[in-house]
């Protein structure tokens, strides 16, 4: 992870760490904080605790998003301080609705100059974001839509349950916009719970979300999504999400947390060790197997 972030994330980049509640690669965010990257534009549908940490860690000057909260808990206090009080400095924001953000990634992934959606009608959102512009259908119905521009992050970082050494990555459970964000990224880091043999991927090609052809680095990092979750591997650590509300409310407590859990640790392996194995054991779900399908051998 250290090399991937050092090589591929550059000061001033637009970085998207995606994953909708699921597969949010906190380990990558921590590494970016640790390497003291600066002036990043952070894109994510839901900034979540990960971007609150990164904003508190001083890496970001701008946020592109569609829902700014601690899901199921409340606010992201470090981000709010930057926006409401410019504390310790202002944070530029550019906001969309979820569908608008998703379609920005789809347009970026598809090399489309714009993407039309039926949203934003009679909403104030386009008034505060000039990138959301109205357009009229050229067909007889002359339907009004809004269009959003493509989003092409300099770096997209997505987590997957498993990938092979070439970066062919498979995901199950919530898909979010991992695929779209990966294809949209100019550089792509795939982090996974397990690096598996290519044959495992090829056994079930319909499960492949991201092909290695768009991937620049593959990092095996178990529990990298903690406190978010990886379907079938570990549960969301809801206690931490709740705790973050307390931690982030007070800048000093937050700084102490960052020092203890990010800056004073060298790697995510240290982070795993610091939590201790009992913590990880408690997050393990029971089994719920998918069953198999037969692709058939045609030789």
């Amino acid at each position, binding site marked *: 992870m250290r090399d991937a972030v050092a090589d591929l994330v550059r000061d001033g980049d637009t970085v998207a760490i995606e994953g*909708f*509640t*699921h597969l949010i690669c906190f380990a990558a965010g921590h590494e970016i904080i640790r390497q003291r990257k600066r002036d990043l534009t952070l894109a994510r*549908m*839901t900034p979540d605790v990960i971007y609150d940490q990164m904003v508190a860690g001083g890496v970001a000057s701008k946020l592109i*998003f*569609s*829902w*700014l*909260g601690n*899901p*199921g808990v409340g606010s992201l206090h470090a*981000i*709010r301080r930057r*926006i*409401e009080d410019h504390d310790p400095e202002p944070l530029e924001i550019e*906001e*969309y*609705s*979820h*569908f608008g953000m*998703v*379609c920005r990634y*789809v347009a970026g992934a598809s090399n489309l100059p714009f993407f039309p*959606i*039926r*949203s*934003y*009608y*009679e*909403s*104030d*959102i386009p008034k*505060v974001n000039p990138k959301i512009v109205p357009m009229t259908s050229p067909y007889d119905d002359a*339907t009004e839509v809004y269009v959003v521009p493509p989003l092409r992050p300099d770096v997209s970082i997505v987590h997957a349950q498993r990938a092979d050494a070439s970066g062919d990555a498979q995901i*199950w*459970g*919530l*898909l*979010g*916009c991992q*695929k*779209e964000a990966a294809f949209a990224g100019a550089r792509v880091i795939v982090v996974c719970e397990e690096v598996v043999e290519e044959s495992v991927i090829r056994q079930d090609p319909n499960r492949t979300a991201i092909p290695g052809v768009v991937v620049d680095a593959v990092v095996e990092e178990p529990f990298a999504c903690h406190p978010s*979750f990886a*379907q079938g591997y570990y*549960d*969301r650590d*809801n206690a931490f*999400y709740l705790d973050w509300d307390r931690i982030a409310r007070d800048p000093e407590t937050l700084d102490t947390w960052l020092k203890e859990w990010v800056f004073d640790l060298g790697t995510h392996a240290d982070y795993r060790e610091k939590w201790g194995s009992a913590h990880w054991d408690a997050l393990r*779900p029971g089994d*719920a197997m998918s069953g198999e399908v037969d692709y058939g051998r045609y030789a």
Partner: protein
Amino acid sequence: MNATAERDLGYSRTEMMIAASARRLEGAKNCFVGVGLPNIVCNLAQRTVARDLQLVYESGVFGARPERLPLSIGDPTLATGATAITSMFELFAFYLQAGLIDVAFLGGAQIDRFGNLNTTVIGPYDTPKVRLPGSGGACEIAIHARHILVIMRQAKRSFVDRLDFRTSPGHSGDPASDAARGWHGTGPTSVVTDLGTYGFDDSTGEMTLMTLHQGMTLDDVHANMGWEPKVSPDLGQTLEPTTEELRLIREELDPTGAHTR
């Protein structure tokens, strides 16, 4: 309307809101579930008035069968055992924008008399007093879901004459112009608060008090509303939560009482 009164009734105001909201899903085939209270409401409805209700989550889950109350709209319990999981693009494009969603729950920091909602900001956008989460999927949900049910605690600062920011559109105030919008959605259908339930007037699109919850008065409503509320000539009393509804809420859906007490 204090702790004593609540104890007397045998249920909390939040439990009343949940029960009243869940009943509004009777007969619905599917429901777009939001974060927080709507999560509990939909799960209650699925166990009571709408057993075949398909739970849809903007996280990309259709037909969820959560084995526990989801901690968020992206809880892993929603994925395991669901009917279908789709990319968020497909969820928003093929399901929501295509008009397949019957009912969606929305809430907000501010609502006006026409059901327009603000979840973006209190104060000016560029110099906010309180920065709220923003739209999420709410803007497009308000446009495309066939019916919108709003659940909000009532207060003068949230039921306002004029929104600080319109995140999600409601009724325009002119039903003819609303019909001409050509949206799948018919806008907000009901608002359930801790004081009562509201509908929207067919001819003006304006929020109208339909029932008061047990123990609540018109004075309570006036005291917690930023405009002069329309009141139905048939103003009634909201049916109280049943023993079974309360049992489900307390034992199955929110055993720790985190959301409901």
